[in-house]
Every structure is written in structure tokens, then in C-alpha cells.
């Protein structure tokens, strides 16, 4: 139901509507006709009127004054005093003093005349009009005042901001000036230093020229004569350079080799390179796979302790595979898988057995299952994935599905690009495919 304003609602016999109007009416009743104050006093002289209105115990804070050029209204609930002035006054220059139980109004007359009475007699309509005008005027004035105040506040804020900025700029300039001075001083020092460097370099060069050939002469005969010359024409720089060439440098160090090892990590990549999230996932999966044991199998009761351990069964299967008993190996792997469906090695090995037994479709299924379990692809399960791909590839090729087989061989090559046998096999498959098309 939307809210309806009581005054515009059609007069429906609507319960809510009725409630609304009753509330409206009761509000009206509260703002009853106030008590008119009649015991005011007033005096006047040529240009001013003084009106004194007793406040009858009402606090000055709740006194509300509306004053226009022809009308004065003082309302202090529940009292009301209003007067339609005899002559017009200058509202701006009039003042009101409210306190001590009385409100005193000092009204400046517009025309210097003596008023016969305070009130003028005007009819009700005029009164109403004047009242409305007064209210409007007061509202306008309030609006203007607040606007002026807002503008003034804005102005002051702006001024404050500008002054702040000026101060900060001054500070910044001062610091910049100090920095520039330092810079200039440092530059001057640098230039001076460079000049002295250059001068000493030149001097050294001149000295070297006068001394003749420098100390880089290696031939023994000349060296003797040179040392003789140097001994006779002794300059301090000559002495120093002689000392340095004469000083024996120690022989080159005897060769040594230090072997080092690097801080190990579970995965061989540095922290910044590692695919940490995938590697963590892989480790977690492995851990879970170890733990998962499918326990609600009826056949479990018939098994020995050993035969309930998937690892033991896997080892058994591997041994049987090695010895060539592929069917028995398959059985061992079957049982292991029944116990734990999450170990990829079991599927991969069973695929190898099936390959040997020429159960090619089963081999493909098992290696696919193994590859599924070997996700995510990380460095740690690379060799397992390699084996699975190769086995599946072989099975596909045996079935003459060469394209699928090639795909698997390519995947295997991606894992291990340096495997020559793999490369040879995949090349052969390529040839066969090209031969048949």
C-alpha cells in the first residue's frame, strides 16, 4: 500500500486513511489558538517606538520574533503578541532585547512623526495578507542570511587554503635554495679537484718525458742503463715507480678446486620459479592416495594381512612381471586396485602387463586411467607420465591407430626431449602415417 497524503486522498472508507486523518486532526488540535497578550506597554518619541512585552515566565530561548516594516509578531508558546503597526518602521535598524522576563523592542520609525496609537485598524483579510507577507519575508531573509554565511565560509576556507599553500611553497623554495647552494658548492669543489688532478697529471707526464723511457722496458741491457739514469736524475716519482716494479708479486696461486652443493629443495626449482600450487596439490594427492583404502569389500575377510597392503601387492605384481608371468601380475594388480583406486603406478604397470598379453584395449584404458591420476603435471611425476604415454602410444600403434599413437609419443617427447629411442620411434610412426595417406 503506498502512503497517501490525507489532503489529496479521495474520501474512501479505508481504515488506514481514517487513521491518517485522525492523526492529522489531532496535530492541529495541538497547535491551538494561542493566548493573545494584551498587557504590553509602549512608549515613543519622535523617531523611535519602544514596545515592552512581558514574557510571563516563558524562557527567552523559546521566543520567536517576526518583524517586518509594518508588522510585529512575537510568539512564545502558548502566548502570542502581534501588532499591525501604525506607521512603517525600519526593520533593519530596529532591535529586540529579550531577557529578564520581558521583551523590549526598539523600533526605528521611517518617518519622524508621532503615532497616535500602536495598532492600526485593518480588516481581517488585510491582516492575513500582511501576516503571510511577513512570514515570506522572514523566510527570504533567513535564506539570504544562510547563503551569505555559506559564501563567507567558502571565502574564508579559500583564503586559509591559499595562505597554507603560500607558506608551504615558501618552505619548499627555501629548502630548494639550500639544496641548490649545496649543489653549487659541491660542483665548485669538484671542478677545483678536477683541475688539481689535471695539473698533477700533466706534471707527471712532463716528468716522465724528461726522464726518458718509462719503466716498461723489459730488455735487460737497457734496464741497466735506465736504472743508471734514474739513479743520477733522481725524482721522487721515479723512485716510487721503481719500487713498484721491483717488488716481487707472489707467484700465481697453485690451482685448486672447491666442490660445492646447493641448498636442497623438495622440488628442484627456486622459490620464484616453482609451480608451488601444483606441486603442493600433487603431494597432497599422493598422501591421500596412500591413505585411501576401499574397505567395504566382502573379499577382504579372506585375505591375509600382506594381501591387504596395496604396496606389497604392487611389489608382488612387479616381480611376477619381471619373471614373465603376466597373467598373475595382472591378478595382483587387480587386487591392489580394488583396495586402492588412487595409485597411478598400479594402473600404469597393469597397462604394461596387458600390453605384453596383447590386451591392447585394456592397456589403453589402464594407461589413460594412470594419466588421469597423474594430474597435475609436475616435475616429480614426469617419469611416470612418460611411461604411461609410451605404453598407450605403443598400444595405439599395435591397433594401427597411428595418429593417436603419434600424439602420445609427442607428449612423451615433450617430457623427455633427449630420448633418442623415443625420437626414432615417433619418426617411424610419422613415416607410416605418411606412407598410408
Amino acid at each position, binding site marked *: 500500500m503506498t502512503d497517501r497524503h490525507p489532503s489529496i486522498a479521495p474520501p474512501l472508507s479505508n481504515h488506514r486513511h481514517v487513521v491518517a486523518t485522525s492523526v492529522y486532526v489531532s496535530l492541529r488540535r495541538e497547535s491551538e489558538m494561542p493566548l493573545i497578550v494584551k498587557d504590553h506597554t509602549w512608549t515613543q518619541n519622535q523617531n523611535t517606538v519602544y514596545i515592552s512585552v512581558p514574557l510571563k515566565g516563558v524562557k527567552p530561548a523559546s521566543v520567536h520574533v517576526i518583524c517586518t516594516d509594518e508588522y510585529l509578531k512575537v510568539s512564545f508558546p502558548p502566548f502570542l503578541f502581534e501588532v499591525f503597526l501604525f506607521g512603517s518602521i525600519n526593520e533593519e535598524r530596529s532591535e529586540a532585547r529579550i531577557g529578564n522576563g520581558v521583551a523590549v523592542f526598539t523600533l526605528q520609525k521611517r518617518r519622524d512623526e508621532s503615532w497616535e496609537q500602536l495598532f492600526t485598524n485593518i480588516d481581517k483579510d488585510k491582516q492575513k495578507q500582511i501576516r503571510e507577507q511577513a512570514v515570506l519575508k522572514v523566510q527570504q531573509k533567513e535564506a539570504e542570511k544562510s547563503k551569505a554565511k555559506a559564501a563567507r565560509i567558502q571565502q574564508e576556507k579559500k583564503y586559509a587554503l591559499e595562505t597554507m599553500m603560500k607558506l608551504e611553497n615558501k618552505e619548499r623554495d627555501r*629548502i630548494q635554495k*639550500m*639544496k641548490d*647552494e*649545496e*649543489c653549487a*658548492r*659541491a*660542483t665548485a669543489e*669538484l*671542478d677545483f*679537484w*678536477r683541475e688539481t*688532478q*689535471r695539473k698533477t*697529471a700533466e706534471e707527471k707526464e712532463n716528468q716522465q718525458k724528461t726522464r726518458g723511457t718509462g719503466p716498461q722496458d723489459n730488455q735487460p741491457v737497457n734496464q741497466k742503463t735506465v736504472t743508471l739514469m734514474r739513479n743520477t736524475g733522481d725524482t721522487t716519482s721515479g723512485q716510487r*715507480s721503481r719500487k*713498484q716494479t721491483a717488488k716481487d*708479486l*707472489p*707467484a*700465481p*696461486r*697453485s*690451482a*685448486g*678446486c*672447491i*666442490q*660445492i*652443493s*646447493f*641448498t636442497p*629443495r623438495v622440488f*628442484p626449482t*627456486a*622459490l*620464484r620459479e616453482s609451480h608451488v600450487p601444483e606441486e603442493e596439490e600433487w603431494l597432497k594427492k599422493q598422501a591421500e592416495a596412500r591413505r585411501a583404502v576401499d574397505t567395504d569389500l566382502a573379499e577382504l575377510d579372506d585375505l591375509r594381512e600382506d594381501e591387504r597392503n596395496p604396496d606389497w601387492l604392487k611389489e608382488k605384481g612387479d616381480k611376477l612381471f619381471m619373471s614373465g608371468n603376466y597373467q598373475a601380475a595382472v591378478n595382483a594388480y587387480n587386487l591392489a586396485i580394488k583396495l586402492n583406486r588412487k595409485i597411478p603406478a598400479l594402473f600404469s604397470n597393469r597397462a604394461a602387463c596387458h600390453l605384453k598379453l596383447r590386451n591392447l584395449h585394456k592397456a589403453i584404458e589402464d594407461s589413460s586411467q594412470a594419466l588421469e591420476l597423474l594430474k597435475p603435471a609436475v616435475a616429480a611425476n614426469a617419469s611416470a607420465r612418460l611411461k604411461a604415454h609410451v605404453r598407450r602410444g605403443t598400444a595405439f600403434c599395435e591397433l594401427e591407430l597411428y595418429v593417436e599413437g603419434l600424439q602420445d609419443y609427442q607428449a612423451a617427447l615433450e617430457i623427455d626431449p633427449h630420448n633418442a629411442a623415443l625420437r626414432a620411434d615417433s619418426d617411424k610412426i610419422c613415416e607410416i602415417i605418411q606412407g598410408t595417406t
Partner: protein
Amino acid sequence: MSLEKPQIIAHIQKSLNYTVFDSRWIPCSAKFVCMGNFARGSGVLQIYEIQHGELQLVREIEKAKPIKCGTFGATSLQQRHLATGDFDGSLNVWNLEVPESPVYSVKAHKEIINSIDGVGGLGIGDGAPEIVTGSRDGTVKVWDSRQKDTPVVNMEPMEGETKRDCWTVAFGHAFNEQDRCVCAGYDNGDIKLFDLRNMSLRWETNIKNGVCSVEFDRKDINMNKLVATSLEGKFHVFDMRTQHPTKGFASVSEKAHKSTIWQVRHLPQNRDIFMTAGGAGNLHLWKYEYPAQRTKKGADDVDMGVAGSVNLLQNVTLSTQPISSLDWSPDKQGLCVCSSFDQSVRVLIVTKLNTV
């Protein structure tokens, strides 16, 4: 009132037309060398001189392979030969007056030489001048220019070990003719300290993030402090005077720059002041304060080092690209040259360092 803190003033800035990787002062002069590679894939060495507030190009030398790093650390003051490592793994020592063919050349590594350092030259310290190079192939090799073709020491991974890139090398502890240490930082956060006198690994640690730069505060004294900077805006200052048998060296670490700290360089005139260059193009100037006691007794009555504290003196942002290299002038305190990946090189003056 004048400014009291040291100010870092960008005195000259020059835009170059190639990527510059390293810049080094030529000792006893107001010239420096910039090394990098042209867009066409060849290496370049440019020598600049500071004249009247501007950089004058004195010489430009183009080489076949881009040059990654260089050092003057292993030559005498008269010769001032520059040892460079390039993208191909070759170590070359050039006489800049006659740059057509190198004074010494060897194919040091199979992959790019990331970092190079020299010791024993410039009249600093005793012992034979040697050059150490660290490369992406995971090995750190020490070379002597009198021995051709084979390194004097080779620090390589063991057989079967996956190699990690070596990102930075530094010499230190070269206070007499026999002692010398090489510190190497790798991309997996390993820091290894090799003692060349005993030919063994003296200490190693891992700071989790790749080590971009290591430097001893002085090469030619009993090792005092080592600063190692890494990725992720952290650097560590190790107090190297006291080595605990299990805990190693004490250290204090600081996070700054909010990005990779590419370089750290100690002021040659004051070994407790160093500057770090960051990946956001900013430079921080730090001062290390020693603790009241540099050693203390540990739990098992063995001496342990105590690390001090590091204070930031000043910082400035010069560029938006990382500042890849920084070098203090050994002749004028406060003068330094830095190069960054926005293909520009800047000469900076740091003031008030004598009152710090």
C-alpha cells in the same frame, strides 16, 4: 640554517643510446667507463670525462659481444687495465689506450659472466692480483693474468648437482699475501664464503631470496662486515669478525626499497657507510652502527658475534627504472656514478659525508 643530513645531489645526467650494465671510475682521474650493449647486439665501452658540469665522451670502443661487468680492482695504478666479463662468458683485460686487442683473454665460462671483482691491484693490499668471475653456469672461478687459459681456483657444483646461477662475487679478507676470501651469492639465496688459503668452503648460508649483490666493507683487511642484498627488498649485514661453528656469522637485516636491491657499495673513505640501489630507481644511504660489544658468549661458552644496527641517512629517487650499477670514486669522497636501465648514467655528489 643549513641542511644537516647528507644530501644526494644528481650533478650530471646523460642519456645514452645503449643499454648500460656497469659503470666504473678510472682510478686517479675524473673519468669513468660505461659498459653495455648496443641494440644491434654488440658490446660497447665508453669513456667519459667530467668537464665544466658536463660529460664529454673521450672514447668509444665497440666489441663483438655485449659486456656485462667490469673492474679495475686487479691492475696497478699505472696500467689501469679494465677487466670485463661479457655475455659469452669471456673474461678480457683491456688496456684502454690500446683497446684493439685485449691484454689477457680467456673463455672463462660457458654462459654469461654475471659478476666480476678484482683484488691486489691499485696499490691496495698485498698478494697477487687476481680476478674472480661468477657466471650463470653456477661456477665461480679465480683468474691470475699471468696464468693462461686455466683458472687458479674453480668453485663448481659437485657431479650430478643441479646448478644454480651465480649472481654476484666479491673478494675480501686479503690482508696479507696468503689470505684471501671469495664470497659468492646465488639465485636461490645461497651465500658461500670460500677461503682461498685453505681451498675450502668456510661458511655458507641461505637467505631465501636470490642474492643480487655482495660486498665486503674493505677488501684488504681482516674481514669485518659483509653486506648481501637480495630480491624482495631485503639486505643483510653480517658481522664477519666472529664465526660461530654452527651459527655462522651474526647478522642484521633491513627491508627497504620495496623492490629488488640491485647493488650495494661501501664508501671507500668510510667503511661504515654504504649505499644501496633499488629496483624502483632509488638510492638509500646507510650507516652501520657497531654494538657496544661485538662478541658475546653463547650458550655453549663459544664466542658469538653480535650484529649492530643500520640507520638510513638519506634516500633519493632518481629514475623509474632499476639502478643497476653504482661506483664510488676512490679519489673524491662523495662522488659516485650510477647507471640505470633507462639508458642513462648519472654522476652524483653526496655531501656532508665527513660529518656523519
